[in-house]
């Protein structure tokens, strides 16, 4: 199944989504956060769309190129660190949760959003040289949850509508009617 055409397709789709992801990153810079450089984490939506379709390697590649490019284009060295930390932690958590299949899309996305902010907090403590940021922990937790919900719901709407040719659905273990 991994023929040249499908590889080419994957690369093309990944590249396009990287661009879309970059756009999200740019739009994110307009949403105010208490620490300059921190982001709300809307770009996680792309990760959420890629993990169940094109898989971990593609999702990771898109995420990382988004982080690097957005820092180069519209960010500072500090915002790069925030994005990297937030993105790495969030990606790891999201990928793991997708594999475990313990939570639904909403749960995965929420935890991904929270993880994103936790990563950013860690960088903030390091960058600002003080643990004062922890006073904002409750709010950043909430913001992560809400951002995660938004992203999760968007993902739920978009995922079934993605063209199957470009976004092959990966192994679906669960039957449609699992008890809620």
């Amino acid at each position, binding site marked *: 199944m991994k023929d040249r055409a499908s590889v080419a397709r994957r690369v093309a789709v990944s590249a396009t989504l990287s661009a879309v992801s970059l756009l999200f990153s740019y739009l994110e810079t307009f949403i105010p956060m208490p620490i300059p450089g921190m982001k709300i984490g809307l770009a996680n939506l792309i990760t959420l769309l890629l993990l169940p379709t094109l898989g971990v390697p593609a999702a990771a590649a898109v995420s990382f190129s988004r982080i690097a490019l957005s820092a180069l284009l519209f960010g500072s060295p500090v915002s790069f660190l925030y994005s990297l930390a937030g993105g790495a932690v969030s990606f790891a958590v999201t990928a793991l949760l997708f594999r475990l299949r313990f939570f639904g899309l909403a749960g995965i996305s929420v935890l991904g959003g929270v993880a994103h902010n936790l990563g950013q907090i860690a960088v903030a403590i390091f960058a600002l040289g003080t643990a004062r*940021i922890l006073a904002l922990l409750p709010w950043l937790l*909430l913001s992560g949850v809400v951002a995660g919900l938004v992203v999760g719901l968007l993902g739920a709407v978009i995922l079934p509508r993605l063209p199957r040719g470009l976004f092959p659905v990966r192994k679906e273990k669960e039957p449609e009617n699992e008890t809620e």
Partner: protein
Amino acid sequence: MPRKNGTRRTGALISLVLLLCLSLCLPSCTFPLQKRYARVIDGPFDTATQLVIYSRNESNAEAFFDAFEEKITAWDKLADIYHEYDGINNLRTLNLSAGSDPVALDPRLLDLLEYGLTKRDETNGRVDLLLGPVLSLWHECRTAGLADPDAARTPTESELAAASATAKRATLHIDRAAGTAYLPVPGSSVDVGAFAKGYAAERISAELESDGYTDFAANVGGNLRVSGDAAGEPWTLSVRDPAGGTVGRIERSGSLSLVTSGSYERYYTVDGVRYHHIVDPDTNYPAAFGWASVSVLCADAGVADVLSTALFCLDREAGVSLLSAFGSSVSVLWITESGERFGVGAFAEGGGS
């Protein structure tokens, strides 16, 4: 799942959540994340300077303190009329060269002198930097009187008359192109004590503000200058009642200054009579308008310092009319020796904070 209903419901939910998301950014934005840092600088202007800054990290606060300390130490040396310092020409250098040659001075000092000349005109001579000869007579007598109270004396009439005559004849020439200042009349001298602290505080604060520092407060020997706010809360500037306690408490944010001139700050006693340090240019004696203190609140610390001295040498009516020349954003609190209080602007009855 039926497509249409699901989509609409999801769409509504998404918009709602997005709205909630955005509104959640706001509390975290206004949450105070700054810590209070303080430093005390002892020495410049023969007094203590206390600095407070609300900053996100210590290195920023330290940089602010270091910059302020460096600048105020420099200003202190430049404006000093009692000591000279190796390698720089200051006001003492200028005064010692009165009647002989122009002296090359630091551009900042020339700014200060020009400021003094302008204020001399604007206050109709109430605040006169060329009153040096008279002021130094009082300074000598005060210093001697504090050291040996039994032998304390006031300057004699003839001393004062001579000094006053010199001061009246005195002029100050400033050549910005050459970077020099010149006192042509021998015996004349410059004394900027009435406004130097306020001017320096304002200059330094403004420079640091344009360097990006904010949310700080400086108390330079009683001259308050604040900027921004104290972690979201307004700064508290208060006037002390000479009899004890606080009157006139102002809570504000932004760039603001409060300066108080008081008769109780620097005085000495001769035969049971107190002689304070603010000399009335008309009488050549300490101002005798019955004020115990005059406090001025406005955006510029230099203006506040000038006005607090000027108003100390005027009765209330004359003071109020002088104020009208300085604009409406100046507030004043007069306190008489008997404890009566008069205020305009923020200090007016019921005006409060």
